[in-house]
């Protein structure tokens, strides 16, 4: 079977791309397990789409619980970039229906990395800057 998760090494760090189809059928527990597996391996994860709000907060809570228990783990850096949503009410409703039908906001991108690797994710609404640790 063809492996869909692609790895790319940049400057010693491994970047993994995860298409939404890989997590689409998973429940929240399985999704977080998969994400944590990648991030705890000192990889930066670029996920197509975005997690649910509850999944994001669970990810923060779960990773907080690991600090002090997992060696050299200081937490994560997380950022979501969505398409510019300066839409009127009608367009917004249409966008909402489209994202619901596709099972998620596929035009968004989520970046998650271990804080020991990613120093900071600087974001403004239109761009993301990834500052790496040394």
């Amino acid at each position, binding site marked *: 079977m063809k492996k869909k998760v692609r790895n790319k090494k940049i400057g010693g760090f491994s970047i993994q791309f995860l298409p939404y189809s890989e997590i689409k059928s998973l429940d929240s527990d399985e999704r977080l397990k998969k994400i944590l597996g990648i991030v705890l391996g000192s990889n930066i994860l670029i996920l197509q789409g975005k997690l649910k709000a*509850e999944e994001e907060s669970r990810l923060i809570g779960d990773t907080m619980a690991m600090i002090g228990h997992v060696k050299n783990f200081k937490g*994560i850096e997380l950022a979501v970039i969505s398409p510019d949503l300066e839409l009127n009410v009608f367009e917004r409703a249409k966008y909402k229906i489209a994202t619901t039908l596709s099972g998620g906001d596929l035009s968004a991108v989520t970046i998650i990395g271990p804080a020991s690797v990613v120093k900071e994710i600087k974001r403004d609404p239109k761009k993301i800057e990834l500052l790496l640790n040394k």
Partner: protein
Amino acid sequence: MEGKGMKSFFRKVLGIFKNKKDVKLGFYGPPNAGKTSLANRICKDFTGEEMGSVSKVPHETRHVQFKEKVEIKYKGKSMTFKMVDTPGITTRIDYEEFLKYKVGKKEAKSRAKEATQGIIESIKWLDDMDVVVVVLDSTENPYNQVNITIVGNLVARKIPVLIVANKSDLAKANIKKIEEAFPDYPVVGISAKYGKNLDEFYEEVFRISKKVR
């Protein structure tokens, strides 16, 4: 007409006996935005006591703190709140960051440990809030993922949100940027430290809280 009049009379009488619940008012936001400073100001103004200690060192509040029966009076109206001040939420905690504030290594490590627990507590408490004031530092970039995650969680739980752009007294403050980042929510620019623009804050808190009582 007569029936309607009777109905409204009974509703009024019942209203007197109806036990209006205290509104659970949560203060959420990133570390060092001024959650405790704002909660302290409100408590001091209406109860004479403060809620917790404030500090320049981030994560000063490391446990969820409560103040029951805080009766806020504003423009002849009165409402009773249970105030819940929470530790600042962040995605990373590095004990070495505390060393910059002249905190000893041992204390920095224990502070970091407590702060991580505090964040877990804050997230757990989200479910129990009636209204949440998200306190942001108006001198910082509002497009921080933690801010967006907190607001996203509140929306998913259908909890009304008021965004406070704190530290408006500082030259670097940019309240407009916070309004632009959260166009769907009321934003009030204040200075908790100097008590600036608190009237507008109370006005909004009353307006939002009325709907949940």
